[in-house]
């Protein structure tokens, strides 16, 4: 079921109404309003990208990534009670202690994976399926693994309904990766574990990239970017998504 998108200006009121269990009546202009909210969000994401350029090395996110975010209806990936906040630039709870990442972080992670049209990607931690859908807009095939059964089922069904035929969802242990489709051009590990599973590094193509967000749910997610060069040598770095320097002055 599609809920009515609120106007940006009335977002707060809409949240209050949603909280009270009151849903505004739907109209034919739904899609137009969702689209308008999405456009506003994308503009905000580009502003954040510019602000964090020093740390991320990207002053603007590429047109392809932005177009992918514009194509995916995020409101279909959040619980109905959260639909009014679907295009707020913030993480939202999706049940089972999991969240759908902040859109700006999704954009940044996607950008860091440097997706190409022919790529094959692996995702560990499907969650709502939103990240997989964004990647599916950009690459040839996405394989995604989820360890929470109801989430895997819901994401699989949702992606099928939205016509993402190039995404395959599997319920199981992400630690071992998905060797049948390896090697991968890019791997994203959203189910942050204590360690990066060695099998995943093995399943990454030379020249491939792995992105791992770390941190508590709802909190600023530092990203770890792992790169495997053409000779198979691995290097890592932290990409901080917040333009914040703890030291003052010129030290």
């Amino acid at each position: 079921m599609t809920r009515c998108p609120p106007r940006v200006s009335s977002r707060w009121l809409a949240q209050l109404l949603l909280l009270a269990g009151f849903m505004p009546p739907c109209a034919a202009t739904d899609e137009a309003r969702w689209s308008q909210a999405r456009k506003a969000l994308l503009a905000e994401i580009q502003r954040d990208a510019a602000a964090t350029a020093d740390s991320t090395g990207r002053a603007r996110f590429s047109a392809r990534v932005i177009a992918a975010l514009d194509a995916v209806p995020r409101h279909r990936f959040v619980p109905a009670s959260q639909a009014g906040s679907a295009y707020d630039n913030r993480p939202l709870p999706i049940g089972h202690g999991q969240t759908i990442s902040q859109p700006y972080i999704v954009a940044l992670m996607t950008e860091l994976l440097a997706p190409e049209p022919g790529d094959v990607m692996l995702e560990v931690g499907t969650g709502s399926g939103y990240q997989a859908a964004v990647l599916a807009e950009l690459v040839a095939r996405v394989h995604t693994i989820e360890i929470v059964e109801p989430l895997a089922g819901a994401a699989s069904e949702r992606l099928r309904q939205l016509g993402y035929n190039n995404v395959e969802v599997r319920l199981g242990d992400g630690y071992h990766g998905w060797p049948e489709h390896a090697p991968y051009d890019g791997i994203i590990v959203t189910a942050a574990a204590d360690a990066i599973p060695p099998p995943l590094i093995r399943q990454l193509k030379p020249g491939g990239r792995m992105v791992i967000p770390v941190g508590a749910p709802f909190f600023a997610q530092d990203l770890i970017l792992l790169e495997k060069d053409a000779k198979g040598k691995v290097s890592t770095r932290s990409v901080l998504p917040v333009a914040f320097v703890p030291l003052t002055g010129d030290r």
Partner: protein
Amino acid sequence: MGRREHALLALSVGLLAGAALAYQVLLFRLLAIVQWHTFVATIVSLALLGHGAAGTALALAGKRLLPRFGSFYAGSAALFAVSAPACWALAQALPFNGLELVWNPLQLAWLAGYFLLLSLPFFFAACCFGLAFMHARERIAVLYAADLIGAGLGAGIATGLLFLLPVETALRTAAIAGAVAASLPPAPRIARLALPAAALIAIVLLPRPWLAPQITEFKGLPRALSVIGAEVEAEYSSPYGLLTTVRNKTIPFRHAPGRSLTATSEIPEQLAVFSDGDAMTALIAWDGRRESLSWLTETTSALPYQLLGRPRVLVLGAGGGAEVWQALYHDAWEVEAVEINPAMLMLLRASLHDPRVRFHQGDARGFVQSDRGQYDLIQVAPLDSYGGSGAGVQAMAESHLYTVEAIADYYARLAPGGLLALTRWVKEPPREGPRLFATAVAALRALGIDPGERLAVIRGWQTSTLLVSNGDLSVADIGRLRAFCETRGFDPVWFPGIGREEANRSHLLPRPWQHEAAVALLGDHADRFLADYKFHIEPATDDRPYFFHFFRWSLLSELIALRGQGGLTLLDTGYLVLVGTLALAAPLSLVLVLAPLAALGRRPGNRSRLRPGIYFLCLGLAFLLVEVACMQRYGLFVGQPLFATVAVLSGFLVFAGAGSLMASRLRDHARALRWAGGGIVLMLLLQVAALPPPPGIVESMPARVILTLVLTAPLAFLMGMPFPLGLSRLAAESPAFIPWAWGINGCASVLSALLADCWQCTWDSGQC
């Protein structure tokens, strides 16, 4: 009222006070399980405003209630009994998610719902006390004594019950005590029998799952349980916390914090242990093969073993035992493992059999202060969760593990050439790392040692390990450190002679902030660096043990501007929540105190209303302020914070109750008050100047608990006198003002506890 009725009323007040304090103690435990640390004290403090609200309600309506005192007393006590478990069940059903607070201010509404619901039982209990004071006003001091002694015993008994019963069963027990209290005082039969009976039935009928803690879904345990194949194996509940063991054969746990990115070894089967639904640690089911422990060489905490041969090791905070296994893998001569939670220690003992290991139950600081051993290595593992550490949810948690004095204590136990290794989570931009370094520098300087030659730090992508050496680090040591970093993909942050280019090679950061901080902290302008750093990273001390409190007000505007990028989450919300709580509690208290004044009108004889108001306000503020200060000061002395807290809390209340009884027997109230006042000042000066004694003075922990009781008893005894003396006088002059004074006392206690925390932290940040 006859003697018998008076005695029964006093007994009822005592029983109800005990039940109410037990409810408070149990709330702390329940909330610690289901919520994040920050919100526990906040919710309980605000709920305690129910006391103040009761005073207000009685001041407004008390006169109309008094003619039917018995019925109203029994009704209110019965309502306490039912609402204590029922409101808890309702509160935990609210969809409050504290982690979302910075993103979604609507969460504040749920938070308010939480504390309003939980304040109801306090309201009903305090109504009973206020009614009793108004009803038997010539015997206020005796009733007040019963209230205090009952509360003191209630705190002790509740803590004891937590060793024996699941926390929800303990809550039901406290509620039943409340129902019994409702049946004691004289009242019409229908009220005295029917109401408590109805309450009892309701309490017994409440389904257990409604009362059992339902942990917020974002804590580690529920998340682990949502994974296919996860099964709870056992639960161990005690005042130290709720331990839950989880096994997963389908998707095994592979807990290896701080492991190198280049690690390739497999991790053996683990049994996960969650403490209060979070802070996971893992017990290892060792298969007897040496190579199945080799992953323990792949963490930053393995660094000290590169510099030592066959060391005598002390592990502080053994948890699931990873650091103990690590020591055994590295051929440790002997290992002493200290763990505070007896249930955790039992699990560890059952999983690890090696004649070289000796286990000790106790607090890390307490152990080090009373121990006489000499160690080649002291390992302090991070005991909190990685996620929790980043979320700043424990910002207001006291930690005596990471203070200047703590490091000096550890250092004193090192053999010549021995190493102290402290491992913490890595967070960017760095906060904990620079603070720990600053703390170690301060500790060494205080001992007259040049810190630069004796410190080394390395970092991985997830953890960072600081070494403090009892002897200058040699060229060979540094060679081994470099080689270890090279093979494991770690980066050196500091060692004597490090170059800047060495500090950011393997896991690249935008800038080697930790290294820059180390250089600055060892340099001539360390003070300026500390002052300029955007987070508050001054060394933590035993007086201000807020290691996780990094907040500065100057951060607020900058991070609000970065909220789109998630900047606000870099704030340690703990401090802000505390300030917000105080900002809410103060005006609420003011309303509660001022509202009844209009209805009460003037006092007979045109006496001042201000003087008694200020008198009871100051008493309320002082009582809790002194109590909180004593808890903190005697915590380190006893060496087991839990026992210190219970001893001071219970002891204070019981001895103050005795003081109140004493006051009831004195004829000359004015003179008694002067003597009590003088005595309190004297005792306070004594506490500040000479107490508590150094922990080494008595060997055994129970003896230190008894000594704590003895040393605080005179102060508590005297502090029990001013309140009933003042209230008796008020009862004689203007009895209508009794509930008002009672309410002021309730509000002041809440503000006092909040102020104590706020004040310390604000002072700590140099912001006052």
